[in-house]
Every structure is written in C-alpha cells, then in structure tokens.
C-alpha cells in the first residue's frame, strides 16, 4: 500500500512535469517525484530489514539539494533571456 502511494506520488509528479507550463512548478513536481522514490526506498528498507534503503535515501537528499541549488540559477538565467516562465515557448533546440 505504501508502495502504491509511492507509485502514485511519482506518477503525479511526472504528470505535473508533462502538464504544467510554469518552470518553477515543473521543478517542484520533479521534487515530488524524488519524494515518491524516497518513500519507496524507505518502504523496501523497512520490509527487508536492511539499511541500504535508508542510506540511499540519505544520499538522495544530498543530491536533490545540490540539484536544486543549480537548477534554480539556470532557470533564472533562462528567464532573464526570454522574460517568460512559460516553458512551452522554449523550442530553439528543435529539428
């Protein structure tokens, strides 16, 4: 059941990335995805009784923090160029 919750959180997060236009909302949905994964890891750790899952969760925290620390400035720089937070208008890398 907890795993189902984890799956649901992950799916909702991915859905948010696909569906929402705002850059910051998309970033937050990615955080939601990470949370879903963390939940599943913790669940597995508790079910099997090993500590691997917990260790991984710990490391995931670290990586997520670093990732956000870098993603936000990139978003800021992008927004400074295009003056909009609407990601569907960014399509220069096509073809």
């Amino acid at each position: 059941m907890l795993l189902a919750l984890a799956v649901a959180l992950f799916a909702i997060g991915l859905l948010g990335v696909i569906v929402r236009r705002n850059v910051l909302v998309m970033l937050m949905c990615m955080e939601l995805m990470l949370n879903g994964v963390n939940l599943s890891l913790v669940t597995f750790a508790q079910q099997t009784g090993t500590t691997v899952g917990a260790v991984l969760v710990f490391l995931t925290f670290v990586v997520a923090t670093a990732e956000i620390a870098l993603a936000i400035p990139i978003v800021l720089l992008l927004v400074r160029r295009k003056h909009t937070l609407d990601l569907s208008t960014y399509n220069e890398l096509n073809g």
Partner: protein
Amino acid sequence: MLDGLLLHLDTLLLFVFGVCALVGASLMIVLRQPMRVAMALISTMVFLGGIYGLLGVHFIAAFQVLIYVGAVMVFMVYVIMLLEVREGRGPRYSQWVWPGLIGAAALVGALVISIWAGLPQVGTAAKGAGFGIQSFAVSFLRDYWLHFELTSVLLVAAVVAAMAIIRVNRRADEKRRHG
C-alpha cells in the same frame, strides 16, 4: 474500544498521512499560482516525514523536514517570490494534458500490477530497533562509504558547475553592457 483504536493507531495514522500526502500532491498540479503550489508541496513533504517517522526511520524523517522542507523548499519559495513579481497570469496547462493523463494512469496501473504480482504483502512493522541512528551511522560509514565518497565527488562537480554559471553569467552581462 480505545485499546483497539490505539492498537491500530499506527495503521490509521499511516492511512491518514498517506491520504493527505496524496491530496497535497494532486493539488500541486491543479493550483494556479506557484506559491500555492509550493505550499501544497511543503505539506506533502511534511506528511511524508510523518510517514517515515511511523515507519521507524526517525532520523530520515528528521532529515526530510530539515533538508527538504527547510532548505530546498525555502529556496524555492524565495525564488518564486523573486520571479513572480514580474509575472502575469498565463495559461496553466501545456497541450499535453490528455496524453499525460492517459500515460500517468497507464504507468500507475502497470506499476501497481507489478507490485501486486511480485512482492509479498507486508504491512507496517515497528522495527525501530534496526534503524537506530547508531546502527545506521555504523553501516553508512562502514559498508557504504564508497557511495558516500561518490556523492561527495558529485557535490564537487556541483560546486564547479555553480562557479561556471557565475562566470558565464558575468561575461554575458559585460558583453551586454559594453557590446
């Protein structure tokens, strides 16, 4: 009766926290203003922290609230405040709503089927003993120190990347001012 309730309190709380987290997550993709979305996310994260605590991994629950909510989401809120001042109201959804919904449903279905088919059903267990911070620390720094080191390498890479962004940024600014 209260005994019976108390006996199943864990499960009940687990259930309630779970539902609330789900609700928070769903709100994220529905709400229009980013600040409200951030709030929904924070609430989801807190409920998740509660779930972790109920599962017995107390330190991870603590770190969840400390790092995720306390650092990451605060940062997000700052940025939203910074950027939203200039933003107007735009359309909320991209053009991929329906494909996304169908796909998400499919994904959930597929994964749930995987879970039901593959894994033994285990409920919650208060095995707090195995996840004490002491035993966690020992196993972390003895058995999984390689992962630890690799993560620190990753952090170094992140620092370098941040410096690179600053430099690029400064050069772009100068070019725009003098060019």
